[in-house]
C-alpha cells in the first residue's frame, strides 16, 4: 500500500517472468515480461471513490484475476523496464455540480474539481507507447445545443468544492482549479462546466498529488459572451510542482479565448 508521496508513475524494472501488480484507484493492473513480449492484464472497477494505491508489488501468476482483460505486445528488444505515465482524458470533461450552484453578479470564485486519469504504458527499446488504460472510465455525455450538433465528452459529477482540503485525495484523479468570474449583472447558474482536458498538462506536487494548469472562465458584462483561458503554470496551491505529462493537443494562443453565442454553450 503506497503512503503519502508515493507515485505510481515513473520507470519500473520488471524481471524476466515476473508479475508486478498495480492498483490505482479502481483500476487493477498486472504486468508481466517474458522473452520478446510484455503482457498486460487489467480490470477496472465501478467505485470512483476507491483510493487504493499499490505500486509495483511482486505477485504470483495465479494472483492475476481471471476476469481481467489480457493483451500481449511483441518486441525484438523488449527492454527490462516499463515506463508508466499519467495522462488526462482524451476528450473534454463535462462536470455537473451535484447540487445547483450559482455565482452572483460581480463575484469571482475558485472551485476545486477532479478529473480521472489514464495510465499510459511505454515499453521496448526504443520506448514506444503500448497502451493507455483509464483508471476509471467516466460515462459518455453529449455537449451541444441539440442531438444533431455537439460533441461527445466524458461526464463527471462534482461537489464543486470551494476548499482544497474538502476534495478527497484519490491517486487516480488530478485536481483542476477553476476560477469563475461573473461580470454580468445577472447571476450565473453553473449547470454544466466543460473542461478542455486534451489541452491541459499534468504536474506533480511534492506530496504526490497531480494537478493541471488553472482554468479561468469569465462571463462578460453583456452576459452572452464567455471566455476560457488556461494559466501557463500549475496553481499556487500545488507548490513546486514538476511537469509529468504534456497536453495531448497543443493550444494555439487565442484558440480557447473565444466568445460563445450563448452562455449555455459555455456552461
Amino acid at each position, binding site marked *: 500500500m503506497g503512503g503519502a508521496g508515493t507515485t505510481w508513475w515513473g520507470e519500473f524494472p520488471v524481471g524476466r517472468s515476473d508479475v508486478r501488480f498495480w492498483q490505482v484507484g479502481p483500476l487493477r493492473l498486472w504486468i508481466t515480461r517474458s522473452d520478446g513480449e510484455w503482457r498486460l492484464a487489467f480490470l477496472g472497477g465501478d467505485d470512483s471513490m476507491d483510493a487504493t494505491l499499490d505500486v509495483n508489488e511482486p505477485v504470483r501468476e495465479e494472483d492475476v484475476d481471471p476476469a481481467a482483460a489480457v493483451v500481449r505486445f511483441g518486441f525484438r528488444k523488449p527492454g527490462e523496464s516499463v515506463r508508466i505515465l499519467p495522462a488526462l482524458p482524451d476528450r473534454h470533461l*463535462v462536470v455537473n455540480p451535484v447540487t445547483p450552484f450559482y455565482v452572483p453578479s460581480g463575484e469571482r470564485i475558485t472551485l476545486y474539481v477532479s478529473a480521472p486519469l489514464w495510465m499510459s504504458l511505454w515499453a521496448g527499446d526504443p520506448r514506444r507507447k503500448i497502451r493507455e488504460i483509464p483508471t476509471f472510465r467516466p*460515462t*459518455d455525455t*453529449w455537449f451541444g445545443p441539440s*442531438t*444533431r450538433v455537439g460533441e*461527445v465528452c466524458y*461526464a463527471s459529477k462534482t461537489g464543486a468544492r470551494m476548499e482544497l482540503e474538502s476534495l478527497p485525495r484519490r491517486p487516480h484523479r488530478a485536481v483542476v482549479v477553476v476560477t469563475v468570474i461573473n461580470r454580468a449583472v445577472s447571476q450565473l447558474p453553473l449547470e454544466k462546466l466543460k473542461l478542455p482536458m486534451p489541452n491541459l498538462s499534468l504536474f506533480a506536487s511534492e506530496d504526490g498529488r497531480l494537478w493541471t494548469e488553472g482554468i479561468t472562465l469569465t462571463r462578460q458584462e453583456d452576459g452572452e459572451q464567455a471566455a476560457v483561458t488556461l494559466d501557463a503554470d500549475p496553481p499556487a496551491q500545488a507548490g513546486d510542482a514538476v511537469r509529468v505529462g504534456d497536453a495531448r493537443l497543443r493550444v494555439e494562443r487565442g484558440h480557447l479565448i473565444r466568445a460563445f453565442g450563448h452562455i449555455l454553450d459555455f456552461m
Partner: protein
Amino acid sequence: MDEWLAPLRDYATPERVISLIRAVFIMVAGLVVARLLGRWAGKLAGVRLRAPQAQLLRRAVFYGITGLVVVTALHELGFNPGVLLGAAGILTVAVGFASQTSASNLVSGLFLIAEKPFEIGDIVTVTEVTGEVLSIDLLSVKIRTFDNLFVRIPNEQVIKSTVTNRSHFPLRRVDIKIGIAYKEDMERVRGILFELADRNVFCMAEPKPLFIFSGFGDSALQFQFSVWGETANYLSLLNSMQEAIKRAFDEEGIEIPFPHRSLYAGSRTEPFPVRVVPEGAETT
C-alpha cells in the same frame, strides 16, 4: 481473285486511305484526351464535390468528348453528321421506349446524388434491406447487409420508398420496453433503472434517460426506458443495458411476468379433471 478485289481497289483510292488513317488517329488521340480530361475533371471536382458527384462529372466529360471524337472521325470518313444525328434522334426515341426502366433509374440516380439522403459507408434501411452503402451509382445503389450479402437496389425503388439512414446523426436513442408485475413498486424500479444508466459507460449522461409509463398491460405494468448513446456504440449500449436490467431485477427480486392466461372451458362443458400428485411421486 483479282476480280473480287477490283471494287475494293477502286474504292481504296489514296485520298480515302489517308482519310481512314486520319480518322483512326482522331479516334485514338481523342479517346486518350477524353480519358485524361475525364480523370482530371474528376480529380479537380473531388476536392469540392462528394465522390458520386465527382464520378458523375468524370463520366460526363469522358462520354461527351468521346461523342465529339466519334462524330469528327465519321465526318473525316465522309459521312454526313447531320444525317447521322437525325438517325440518332429516331434511334433515341426507339431506345427510350425500350429502356424506360433504365432511363427512370438513371434520372432517379441523378436526383439521389443531388438530394444526398445517405453517403457511402452509411448504415441504411431501404425496402426492408439494412446494411452499409457500398456505392451510389447512376442506375442502382449497392448495399452490403450485415450477414455479408451484396444487394443491388434500383435507384427508382430507392427514390420511391422510405429510406432510413441509421448513421446520419452522431447520437441514437435505445428504447427498452419492460413489463413488471403489478405488485412491484414503480418508484423503486425507476430508481434502479436510472442507477444502471448512470453506471453504464456507453449511456450518455446528457441527453438524460427517459422513463415513460406506457400503461396497464394484461399481465404487467408496461413502461419504456430510453437511453442515449453514440451511434457507433448502439449495439453495445443495447446489449449491456438489457443484460444489466435483467441481472438487477433478478438480484432485487423484481418480477418480469409472463403473460397470464386463464383457461375457461365454458359453462356447458365439464370442468377440467385435475389430479394432485404428491411431491416425489412417480407419474405415468
